[in-house]
């Protein structure tokens, strides 16, 4: 252990807990033995004190490299799989990268990065390393266009919520997530698996949903997280019937009442909770009462997380937020008082706050500002609707109107389409201002979901 009692990931792993694994669709690695093995070909020493880019084509090697590098590298930058290669040079410069861990070493000759280390499986034996320092974790924000921002975290900040919640009762959990662990939401689950003494089953972008669920079952997954879009897709697929996790978690998008109710019905024996977190603001809170939104008394200081609402958006200050944006032209991450503006807009109704949408996602309807999420939440309440997306469409008369694409629940009689459409419009008229009521409701087979698991909003 280092003099300042800095804990790294390796310090949460040890031989005393047996049977722990980290697995993907192809390979399973024992987390019990991992400390005496290396994915870096035994070259960890060379990476000591360096700023390391983690650029791997799979999550399994990425996770194993994180375990080795944490506490040894000065910083590590996690690259999600959908990172636009055109942005790499700017990110390397901003993060001061001087080493890369990759499975494609040929691509890195003559790139100017002085040290290239190949990550490879199977693991080979090595002498266990000792934690040397607190490594800075660099994560990319999931903005839609331009070079993503780099948010700097410490392991302590990343794991603040996990430590605060304490150990789960019962047998050690087997965690899974539909996310990629190189994004904030997925990394949270990976860290939970490591800190909880449990195992983790990784997702695979090339795997069919039914095969994924079969694998989750085979591995005994008990705790699983995803975005509401991930969960709606699972509910639509019919695969949920063979799956019975103990804990179902939603985050990354607004969890509306319809998806919470849908999950509760599909998994009657599970606890269903939604969490609020972002790459910048860290984990804010979890809501486990089965209702959308969050109680108004969550504002103020609660378990070390301070929250307030200013100009309609949720602001968070805590030791779990990122500490800065990294890079030459990086803007300030917090305001002068240390609050992160989440950009998530909330509305107080009764004694509960409800998420209405992203500040940047507002669509313009004839000069009036509309959050598409607010409309979707109303549409999704219709019992025959599984998923929807509202967007604006140009109109020669008002400039813009709302149109909605809707996926109907499995087995809905297509002959009822006209009737359902009228009911949806009626429901929207009863609950929304008239300019927010969809002018056109189209029934579609699929809606695009981004690699980060969020409903694609090309017009936002």
């Amino acid at each position, binding site marked *: 252990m280092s003099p300042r009692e800095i804990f790294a990931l390796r310090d949460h792993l040890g031989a005393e807990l047996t049977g722990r694994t980290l697995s993907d669709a192809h390979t399973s690695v024992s987390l019990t033995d991992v400390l005496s093995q290396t994915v870096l070909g035994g070259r960890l020493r060379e990476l000591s004190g360096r700023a390391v880019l983690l650029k791997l084509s799979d999550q399994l090697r990425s996770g194993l490299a994180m375990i080795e590098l944490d506490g040894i590298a000065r910083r590590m930058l996690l690259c999600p799989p959908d990172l636009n290669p055109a942005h790499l040079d700017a990110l390397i410069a901003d993060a001061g990268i001087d080493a890369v861990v990759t499975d494609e070493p040929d691509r890195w000759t003559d790139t100017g990065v002085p040290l290239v280390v190949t990550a490879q499986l199977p693991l080979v034996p090595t002498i266990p390393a000792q934690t040397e320092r607190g490594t800075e974790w660099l994560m990319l924000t999931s903005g839609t266009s331009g070079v993503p921002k780099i948010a700097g975290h410490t392991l302590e900040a990343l794991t603040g919520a996990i430590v605060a919640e304490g150990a789960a009762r019962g047998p050690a959990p087997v965690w899974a997530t539909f996310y990629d662990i190189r994004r904030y939401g997925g990394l949270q689950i990976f860290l939970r698996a490591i800190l909880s003494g449990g195992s983790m089953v990784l997702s695979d972008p090339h795997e069919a949903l039914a095969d994924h669920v079969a694998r989750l079952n085979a591995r005994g997954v008990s705790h699983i997280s995803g975005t509401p879009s991930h969960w709606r897709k699972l509910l639509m697929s019919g695969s949920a019937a063979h799956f019975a996790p103990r804990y179902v978690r939603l985050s990354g998008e607004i969890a509306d009442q319809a998806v919470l109710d849908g999950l509760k019905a599909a998994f009657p024996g599970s606890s269903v909770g939604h969490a609020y977190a972002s790459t910048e603001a860290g984990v804010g809170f979890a809501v486990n009462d089965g209702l959308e939104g969050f109680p108004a008394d969550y504002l103020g200081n609660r378990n070390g997380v301070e929250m307030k609402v200013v100009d309609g958006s949720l602001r968070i200050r805590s030791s779990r937020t990122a500490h800065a944006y990294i890079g030459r032209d990086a803007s300030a991450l917090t305001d002068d008082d240390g609050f992160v503006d989440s950009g998530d807009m909330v509305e107080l109704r009764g004694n509960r706050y409800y998420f209405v949408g992203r500040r940047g996602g507002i669509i313009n309807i*004839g000069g009036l500002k509309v959050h598409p999420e607010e409309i979707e939440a109303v549409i999704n309440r219709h019992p025959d609707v599984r998923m929807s997306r509202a967007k604006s*469409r*140009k*109109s*020669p*008369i*008002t400039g813009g*109107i709302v*149109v909605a694409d809707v996926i109907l629940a499995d087995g809905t009689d297509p002959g009822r389409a006209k009737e359902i459409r*009228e009911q949806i*419009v*009626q429901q929207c*008229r009863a609950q929304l201002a*008239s*300019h927010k009521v969809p*002018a*056109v409701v*189209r029934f579609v087979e699929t809606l695009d979901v981004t690699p980060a698991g969020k409903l694609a909003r090309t017009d936002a």
Partner: protein
Amino acid sequence: MSVRSKVIEAIQQIAKEQHVTLPELSEDLSLHETGFDSLAFAILVARLEDETGVDPFTISEDAAFPATVGDFVRAYENVPA
């Protein structure tokens, strides 16, 4: 279904949704007198575009918005196929 009956049916459907009581839709009824506001017309034009594939008010640069129900229907009837 003729273009005319498609247009009339769409007007009646939207009137029902918007709780607008329509007068009799005669040829020379002014569009103002239908009770439709601009939002209702925007909905009407969008739905007819989905159904017929045309939006006569966006295609033509100099198209003036019609004044009567008859003009409105003709705007759809006169679109070249």
